[in-house]
């Protein structure tokens, strides 16, 4: 039983090696570059320096978010998934790029899609790297993992001192034992994009959009303990739709 397996493996390897040397079909691996801005300005940490749509001034002291199921859709109707997921942590430069092992066929691509957070099936798995990063979403709120942790301080003209906010997104608790999967499926158009060799795609997050569109976010109402707050989770879900766009593509 085991010998055939090894033989098959060897055969495959041999075939693969020979394929590589003869085959003229060009393929590429894709590196995703994750960047963040506040209405177009590159994001700076810690100092209170941004004003949201509702007029509160705020800082960003921590930002982590999970991107999964990254897919390129070709004009012939086929789809290639860039295997893997990435937890972006602005405190760790290594996480700002992600190179998938997937080899992307040389086709014309018309859109790029991904999930912000995990979809229900992926969210049910156990991930050692994410557990080690304390990325879990509590079981009492349905378990799985966070989509995002956006944290900082905010002030407005009437406040005596800065207050803290923790904009954490994940499953939405409807009532004890009932949850809604709360990832965001996002699809962004590509203009008949081809990739000649190894390529990179920039995925931009405009943090200001989390506070703006379509729901003007009021930090005086929604600042902390939002994880179990169904209304807040749904507002996040709605605002998340306009947060992402594609930036520089190096084909």
């Amino acid at each position: 039983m085991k010998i055939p397996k090894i033989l098959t493996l060897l055969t495959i390897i041999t075939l693969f090696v020979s394929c590589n040397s003869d085959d003229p079909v060009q393929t590429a691996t894709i590196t995703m570059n994750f960047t963040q801005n506040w209405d177009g300005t590159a994001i700076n940490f810690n100092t209170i320096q941004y004003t949201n749509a509702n007029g509160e001034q705020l800082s960003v002291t921590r930002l982590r978010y999970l991107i999964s199921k990254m897919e390129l859709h070709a004009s012939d109707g086929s789809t290639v998934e860039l295997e893997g997921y990435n937890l972006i942590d602005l405190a760790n430069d290594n996480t700002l790029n992600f190179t998938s092992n997937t080899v992307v066929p040389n086709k014309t691509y018309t859109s790029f899609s991904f999930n912000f957070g995990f979809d229900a099936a992926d969210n049910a798995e156990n991930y050692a790297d994410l557990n080690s990063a304390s990325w879990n979403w509590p079981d009492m709120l349905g378990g799985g993992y966070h989509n995002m942790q956006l944290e900082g301080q905010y002030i407005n003209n009437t406040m005596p001192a800065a207050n803290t906010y923790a904009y954490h997104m994940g499953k939405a608790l409807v009532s004890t034992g009932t949850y809604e999967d709360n990832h965001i499926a996002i699809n962004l158009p590509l203009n008949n994009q081809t990739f000649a060799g190894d390529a990179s795609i920039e995925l931009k997050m405009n943090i200001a959009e989390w506070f703006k569109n379509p729901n003007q976010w009021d930090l005086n109402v929604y600042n902390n303990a939002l994880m179990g707050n169904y209304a807040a989770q749904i507002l996040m879900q709605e605002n998340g739709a306009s947060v992402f766009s594609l930036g520089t593509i190096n084909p």
Partner: protein
Amino acid sequence: MKKLSLIIFFGISSLSCTSDKGTETVRATPSPLEIPQLFADNILAPIIPTNNPQTVEGVALGRKLFYDPILSGDGTQSCASCHSPQNAFTDSDQFSTGIDGLLGTRNSMPIFNMAWNYDENFFWDGRAFSIENQAMQPVINPIEMHNTWPNAVQNLRASSEYPALFKAAFGSDQIMPPRVIQAIAQFERTLISANSKFDKYLTNQGTLTPSELNGFSVFMDESKGDCFHCHGSDRNPLWTDNIFHNNGLDTSFSDLGLGEITGDPADNGKFKSPSLRNLAFTAPYMHDGRFATLDEVINHYSEGLVNSPTIDPLMKNLATGGAQLTAADKADLKAFLLSLSDTEFINNPNFQAP
């Protein structure tokens, strides 16, 4: 299959033979860390430097060194003086006293599950990178063991026992500081704690009381304790994120913590989150040992938080000092925290003075 694996085996062993030719080193006996199933199932593998693999002889030497006052300036103090097994390898003083009777300014830290500190930042302020480098410091710290490394290795070389032990562990009886700290680090990596009452509950070998279970809910509930964002969970059984935070102890800082190391004012007042394992043995608490009891710690998070420019955003309700837990929730939270203590760990015969 057997034949094939034999061929592969010979192939590999002949390869390694050729690369070994010429060196006549005595090989120490490999002794890989025994990774608890709970850790293997949930978190990433421990960090073991490739140039310092765990060996039986290395661990034994490290254990002897850890307990031996020979490393201190006047031969009176060992690592264990401030890192005692009965205290989960910390001590019960607010500040520890060095060989010259001088008092430090920080509370000693417990030592366990060190190989799972993935960022490898050690000390309250993270100033030492890697377990090996950390061990360099106490020996020469003037308010601790107050020795010099040349003097320390000279005493080891002059001893009747150590040269043979270094030879067994590292293949050479040349005693150098890097070998000393490698041996100590090997011993420290074996100090694994994963047998608390709560671990047994998670691995279906035991149950919890209703109070402990509710305490765990308080710990996990963002609108109550909200401890899990920094102190681990059932899926991160280290019970720490090993990251630096300002948890609202002071409005201004006499000890800058991480800020002293990075020079960035945005890091002032940040200290490494300690693991919540073994709290039953590690009082007093916080980097300066300011709280003698767990009740004081819980009251701090419930009513005692104070604001400062670098406060962690997870510290909420600052105007009222915190989560305002009920007396019942506080008692349950404490019961849960104590269920993370691991008596088998502190009594493990392999960890005691040799």
